[in-house]
């Protein structure tokens, strides 16, 4: 069976995560995919690499899904985050949320993305034309 909260070095297929949350009660699935962006504030990214503390990251993703269940009891969640080297436009993260009606699916999805960026032990290294940085310690 596929893992609902997964950190993987394989390419991410959004359809797989949508399928994991699809069920007869769910009329709505909001899916977010985060992609490697080439240009950020005039700086060109050549590629990225993500690193994770994998077991803790998967455990915290599951904790976030439990938080979602408290706020939106009818939501089902699946999250995948890729690690290792990524090229421009590759999918780094996919978050799929199903709910009976659509508004909650968007809201729960946004909540999950905020929480991932706060607490999930995953780190992004930007490989740019003039060097490499772990995000958060870029040269200003």
């Amino acid at each position, binding site marked *: 069976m596929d893992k609902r909260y997964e950190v993987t070095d394989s390419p991410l297929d959004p359809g797989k995560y949508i399928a994991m949350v699809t069920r007869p009660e769910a009329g709505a699935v909001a899916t977010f995919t985060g992609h490697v962006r080439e240009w950020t504030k005039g700086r060109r990214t050549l590629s990225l690499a993500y690193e994770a*503390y994998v077991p803790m990251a998967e455990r915290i993703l599951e904790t976030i899904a439990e938080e979602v269940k408290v706020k939106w009891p009818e939501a089902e969640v699946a999250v995948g985050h890729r690690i290792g080297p990524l090229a421009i436009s590759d999918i780094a993260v996919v978050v799929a949320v199903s709910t009976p009606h659509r508004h909650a699916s968007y809201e729960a999805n946004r909540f999950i993305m905020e929480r991932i960026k706060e607490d999930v032990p995953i780190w992004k290294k930007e490989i740019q034309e003039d060097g490499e940085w772990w995000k958060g310690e870029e040269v200003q």
Partner: protein
Amino acid sequence: MIQVLYFASMKEASGLASERIKWQGGTLGEVMEKVTDLHPSISWDGVRVALNEEFCSGTQEVESGDIVAFIPPVSGG
């Protein structure tokens, strides 16, 4: 013994992904002091600490066999 894990910029600063450290008992804060002795170039700016895959405060007691992970500011998503 405890196992200590380093990630991202801390892995580069320590030159290690993990190491085993002799441990007779003490707090997470004391683990951090020990690590600072071992790797003076490590920056603790914004670093959180996880004990056995859970975020914990520096007052938490650490026992032999525990896994301590240092979590620099995360940037997933």
